[in-house]
């Protein structure tokens, strides 16, 4: 299947060979250039060749990671591949209460939540009504490998759009605004992302933005507890193995919704946006998803937000973020 997909994408990207040559050429030039500039030059040069525009071009300069490709409904090789298969394979989380989870008390076993609603909207747009979706629950640190290894078509899993990630995958336009926040027991003396974290044990999910931020500045906290899923942090917090959790405010709110004795401490200390992650060269799919998002912002988004997220204590007047485009 991989081989078939590769072949079709080869056909679709007639210029791949040219790109390879360009890459090699650029690498040689880059090596000849003064050190230090080399890394940036490679990607800029890539974009400059006009072979892979948009997402890839942005990775090098990356001033505005949220800017994605303009929406379009045209089918490209990736979308055709999905249509041929007859189902959409999506990497999701089933541990994020009200984002992507399975309610054990409901008949059936469908996943549900804000992310899942979006997945259904995308699937119906591409495959028509009653579209089949295969959900693969993936741990935080497998989000990028799952896309790169063709295990999934896309990841809709509270995934923050960042410059680093843009070097490996492509993102849709932003569909949710969030930021990192600290979660701790109500009676804790931790007041937020500040010096009160000193000497405390702080939990984060492996390969998450929270982990990155804590590595940049941990305020003297012990950040050695890294878990496969952000929800595993709440388990550790309840068991007293850690003193606080750092995660996206949206997920922190979903954790607080499951345990009334913990609360969000201080405000968000970063500004981030969630996007749908896809394979880097799947330009047609990115444009297609962006088209879905244009429509979704108008109707589905608000309904879904009110159903899933407003009850967790998030701002009930929230609006979808305005899309930005790079081309």
């Amino acid at each position, binding site marked *: 299947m991989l081989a078939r997909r590769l072949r079709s994408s080869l056909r679709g990207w007639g210029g791949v060979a040219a790109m390879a040559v360009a890459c090699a050429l650029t690498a040689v030039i880059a090596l000849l250039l003064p050190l230090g500039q080399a890394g940036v030059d490679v990607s800029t040069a890539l974009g400059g060749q006009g072979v892979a525009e948009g997402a890839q071009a942005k990775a090098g300069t990356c001033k505005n990671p949220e800017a994605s490709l303009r929406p379009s409904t045209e089918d490209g090789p990736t979308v055709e591949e999905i249509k041929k298969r007859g*189902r959409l*394979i999506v990497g999701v989380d*089933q*541990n*994020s*209460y009200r984002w992507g*989870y*399975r*309610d*054990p*008390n*409901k008949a*059936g*076993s*469908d996943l549900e939540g804000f992310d899942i609603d979006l997945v259904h909207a995308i699937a119906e747009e591409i495959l028509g009504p009653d579209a*089949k*979706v*295969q*959900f*693969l*629950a*993936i*741990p935080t640190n*497998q989000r990028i*490998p*799952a896309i790169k*290894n063709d295990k999934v078509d896309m990841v809709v899993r509270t995934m923050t759009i960042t410059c680093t990630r843009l070097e490996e995958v492509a993102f849709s336009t932003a569909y949710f605004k969030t930021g990192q926040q600290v979660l701790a027991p109500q009676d804790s003396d931790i007041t937020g992302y500040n010096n009160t974290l000193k000497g405390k044990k702080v939990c984060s999910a492996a390969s998450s933005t929270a982990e990155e931020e804590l590595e940049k500045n941990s305020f003297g906290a012990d950040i050695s507890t890294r878990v*496969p*899923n952000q*929800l*595993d942090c*709440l*388990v550790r917090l*309840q068991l007293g193995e850690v003193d606080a959790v750092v995660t996206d405010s949206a997920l922190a709110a979903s954790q607080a919704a*499951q*345990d009334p004795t913990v609360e969000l401490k201080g405000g968000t200390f970063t500004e981030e946006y969630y996007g749908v992650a896809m394979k880097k060269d799947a330009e047609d799919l990115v444009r297609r998803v962006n088209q879905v998002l244009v429509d979704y912002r108008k109707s589905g988004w608000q309904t879904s937000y009110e159903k899933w997220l407003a009850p967790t204590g998030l701002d009930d007047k929230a609006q979808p973020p305005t899309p930005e485009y790079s081309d």
Partner: protein
Amino acid sequence: MTYPPNGGAAPPGPALPTMPAIPPQPGASPAPAGPSGSPPAVPARRTAWAEGVDRLRTAATTEPGRLRIIGAVLALLVVAFGAVTTWEMSERSAAADDVLHRSQPLSRDAADIYRSLADANTAASSGFLAGGQEPAGVVERYERDIRTASEKLATAATNSGSDPASAAAVAKLNKLLPEYTGLIERARANNRQGLPLGGAYLRYANDKMQTMLDAAEQLYKEENERLRADYDDATPYPWAAIGIGVLALAALVWAQRRNYHRTNRVFNHGLVAATAASAVVLLWLLVGHTMARAGLDDSYDHGVRSLNVLNDARIASLKARGNENLTLVSRGAETREVGGVPKDKFDVEYQSQMEQLGGAEGGTGLLGTAASLADDAAGRQPVAEAIKNVKDWKNRHQAARAADDSGDYETALEKVIGTKDQEPTDESFDQVDDALKTALDHEQTEFEAAAEHGRNAMTGLPVGAAVLAVLGAAAAVLGIGRRLSEYR
């Protein structure tokens, strides 16, 4: 242990003949006492020793003296033979008793602990898969497993005192078990409220269980080593007893031959009786021990080895089942790199346990070994049943995986915990578990019968040997005494 009084009877034995052998010698009895009490102590002691040797040497020059020495040596040999036989055989008999009544039951308990824990974990994940309202049967199974595990742990704790490794494993399990049940309760409580936190707790509990299973396996291995050690104590040939027995018989024959040459009398009743007694003890020893050994070896080869393999198989099937459930509970939440490719952690575990259980085809691996170890139809039949069901299980599992991989979680779930008409893997697993239980029960009976047989072959041997040896020694002394009386 029961026979020290008889063993203790031995010393007076040699004393009997020795006394008459020495006192009637040249009446220099005050001589050793005098010099030893005088100031130059060291040379005096030497003198006393030299005197004793001198006296013996003098005695050896006269026929009555020689007869006394011969009588003493014969009695000593026969009594020593009896004593060593009693000692060696009570040790072996005690070890055989331990095999039957202590180490094997403990090994079985350890296997039960191991199995109950794996079973509890499997039941917990099954119940979880079924939803917030867990099926009563599954809950009951979990509760029973936890109860069994804690009961057997208490027994193991009282019996593992002498063995630091077992004691450490038991202590670890005693500490972790309440932690585990606590996590499961939290998982249930959250699951009932429909919160995904329950799933996170279940995975955490499962991680804890893996540590517990390692400790339980450790305990099981320790107990099996103890069992092996008891076997090793019960089965070696009593070479010392056999050697002394042969020596005593040879000495008796020699003494009678000498007697015959000197007196032309064919029989000395006392010596004949002593020879007969020694021969009976030696024969009894050889036959009894050989039979005991055969019984014990049989109980090991056809009981313990089968039991070990079957226990391992049952635990492998339980672990495989638990991981099959967790594959659906976690739905890819945890991965493990296999050859550079990230794969579902629980499915990888399932595959490796099934491989262990039945090999690639279902008929090799542990079940293949169990089939080759089973030595009768009643033992082979349940193993064959298990092999057949493992094959079914694998096929059904494949169907479940195929459904799940194509995005049809609902069908996958039905294929794993569904109703009978949906042909779930649950059914296959239960059949494998039942078949293995039947096989285990059968092998346990076989073991007990063979080990009992072996142990019984040694019954009475230590006491009998002691009594016969004392009688034999007395007869020898009397026989020699009769010859001696001719010199008065």
